[in-house]
């Protein structure tokens, strides 16, 4: 589980805490830097006054060439001062006018007569002495981290020598350590106060988000079509809110699609009822009229004009009956169960009709046995779909047909790569006379739809440019 997956109720406080800590750190650092500067200033002041005092005391020993007295003076601040004081020089050295070591508090390190430049950056000492009137920083930092303060020993305006007070940076460490400890303790004190407050505040800030996320998640899970099988969803609340929102949108879209399909199905059902009603109403008088015509022809006077008119009437009435019977799809009795050969017959019929277009037909019939489905109706479905595909496909196009059994259903999939059906037409596709096609009756898909419904199955259509696919699913009747 990574940091990203943590709850906001933890993450926001952690971030706020980190900010508080960073601020405290920065403030401590600033304070310490200030203290360090202060320390340096203290040292500068103390070394200036000590240097002045020693320089005055050294005038007589230097003029009298009293090495021992000079040594005692040089040694006094190093030995006599309280040890551990950060402003005690680590060594005192006196260079004579020729810049040789005259005496130092540490004769081993700076022996008598040693050339000054072996131990000190004399060029900087010289520039320091010249710029002494200017004040400012009176320290030279030597390579090994020592600070050296420089004071001229002068008598009557003549320089007798140079007094060097050496301080080690390491000397500051105890005092600096004490300062650092104080600063850290102070910061820790403030943090002890601030951290719980900021933690509390951050938790409060996070609380509504967390609640919102939980709520969203709850709603999202309830409406989710397929909850992720209890799989742990990672990420903080915001990530989970996003996920829930996505699922909700998907669910809403699916619901809307279902509703659209239901509307279509309802409309088709209403049309079906209307068509059936109208057909019945027409069929009854139609039967009578056809009977009457038959009677008239059989018992009429044989007037050729009348007979021609009767024949005309009969043809018209028969066309009406065909149309009406096409609207009125009914499971016709006496239809034998579907055999693989029935399916092959549909292929033959379709090929005969589709010769002219020379479209390729990719055929796959996986049926092995007889199915308890009315062969006439299934053949009609297959034929209708194949003929439709042949109409749609281009001359060098391809039609694919697959018939097979799956999950206790008969599946018929007919696909072509011809012109696709635009969305507007797709919506009214299965309505009668929806297709304003010159060569079609406009009833093929309607009849197909009615048959599928009659058989308790479903038909779905998908159409994108280059691929139009009808998928029919007919449930096989349960064996008694």
């Amino acid at each position, binding site marked *: 589980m990574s940091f990203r997956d943590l709850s906001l109720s933890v993450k926001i406080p952690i971030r706020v805490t980190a900010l508080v800590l960073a601020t405290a750190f920065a403030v401590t650092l600033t304070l310490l830097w200030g203290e360090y500067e202060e320390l340096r200033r203290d040292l500068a002041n103390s070394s200036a006054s000590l240097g002045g005092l020693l320089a005055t005391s050294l005038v007589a020993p230097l003029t009298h060439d*009293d*090495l*021992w007295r000079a*040594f005692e003076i040089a*040694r006094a601040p190093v030995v006599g001062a309280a040890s551990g004081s950060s402003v005690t020089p680590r060594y005192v050295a006196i260079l004579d006018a020729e810049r040789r070591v005259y*005496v130092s508090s540490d*004769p*081993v390190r700076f*022996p*008598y*007569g040693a050339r000054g430049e072996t131990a000190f950056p004399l060029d900087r000492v010289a520039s320091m002495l010249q710029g002494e009137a200017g004040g400012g920083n009176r320290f030279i930092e030597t390579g090994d981290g020592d600070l050296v303060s420089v004071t001229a020993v002068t008598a009557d305006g003549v320089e007798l020598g140079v007094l060097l007070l050496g301080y080690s940076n390491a000397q500051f460490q105890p005092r600096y350590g004490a300062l650092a400890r104080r600063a850290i303790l102070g910061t820790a004190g403030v943090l002890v106060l601030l951290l719980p407050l900021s933690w509390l505040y951050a938790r409060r800030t996070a609380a509504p988000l967390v609640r919102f996320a939980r709520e969203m998640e709850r709603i999202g899970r309830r409406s989710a079509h397929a909850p992720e099988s209890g799989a742990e969803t990672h990420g903080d609340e915001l990530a989970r809110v996003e996920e829930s929102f996505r699922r909700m949108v998907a669910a809403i879209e699916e619901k809307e699609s279902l509703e659209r399909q239901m509307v279509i199905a309802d409309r088709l059902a209403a049309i079906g009822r209307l068509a059936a009603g109208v057909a019945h109403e027409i069929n009854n008088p139609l039967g009578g009229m056809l009977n009457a015509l038959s009677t008239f022809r059989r018992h009429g006077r044989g007037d050729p004009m009348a007979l021609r008119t009767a024949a005309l009437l009969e043809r018209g009435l028969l066309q009406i009956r065909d149309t009406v019977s096409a609207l009125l799809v009914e499971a016709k009795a006496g239809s034998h169960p579907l055999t693989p050969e029935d399916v092959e017959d549909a292929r033959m019929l379709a090929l005969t009709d589709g010769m002219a277009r020379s479209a390729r037909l990719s055929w796959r019939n996986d049926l092995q046995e007889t199915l308890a489905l009315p062969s006439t109706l299934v053949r009609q479905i297959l034929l209708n779909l194949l003929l439709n595909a042949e109409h749609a496909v281009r001359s060098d196009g391809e039609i694919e047909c697959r018939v097979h059994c799956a999950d206790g259903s008969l599946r018929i999939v007919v696909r072509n790569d011809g012109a696709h059906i635009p969305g507007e037409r797709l919506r009214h596709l299965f309505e009668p006379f929806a297709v304003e096609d010159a060569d079609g009756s406009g009833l093929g898909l309607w009849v197909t739809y009615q048959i599928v419904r009659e058989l308790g199955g479903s038909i779905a259509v998908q159409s994108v440019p280059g691929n139009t696919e009808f998928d029919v699913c007919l449930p096989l009747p349960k064996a008694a």
Partner: protein
Amino acid sequence: MERSRRAILAALGVGAWALASKSRAQPMLRIGLTAVFLDDEIRFLLRWRAYLEQRLARKVEFVQRGRYRETVELLREGHLDAAWICGFPYVRFRSELRLLAVPLFEGKPLYRSYLIVPAADATTRSILDLRGKVFAFSDPDSNSGFLYPSYVLRTSQERPETFFKRAFFTWAHRKVVDAVSTRLAHGGSVDGYVWETLRLAPGRLTEGTRVVSKSPEFGHPPIVVRANLAPELARDLRDAFTGMTKDTEGRALLASLNLDGFAPGNERLFDSIEAMWRIVQPG
């Protein structure tokens, strides 16, 4: 309570008056001190002065000066009555001074000059190994701290001013030990008696030094009086010094001095110093 305190105060007042009147009756005795011994131990000096005042029944003042020469000058000019000085100035001004007493160190009125080097220096075998080094003398009027090493150099046809890179005076034997142990100087000449006494003292100053060589024995720095001091006073003073072994306080003071006592002494003790002086002195 109040009464008894007043009585004590009165008694103290009487005592103080008695002492003051006695001191007023007898002129103060001024004794010069030099760094031939550890003359910077003030507490000891106060005790010794009180002891002498009690023994002499007169006020005593110790007069300390930084250099032997000042003390000798004060004595010769009559500003001091007595002084503990080195054998070297004594032989130089023998006619103006009279030997009063000589300290007994390790049972003898004799001492040696030590050549010391820093303890870290394990190679130096004699002063002649210190050519071109920094050397610490105690006082130009000191036998052990200057005359003897100069004499040794002279017998090797050397002079301190040219033999050493740098020679300086610390004006006290203790400070020679200090200068050598801090390694300010690569070597130094010191009064053997002072070095041995320092070795016993807390502070461990001598641990930083190594004794390279010891000189032959010389007469120990004597206590002298000016030649014109009243003989009775001189006798009293000699008795006071030589009699220190006879009482507890005196013995305690001698123990502090790391001495066995004071003896009347003999002028001949210092002949060897005079002989060296004759050789070393220019012209």
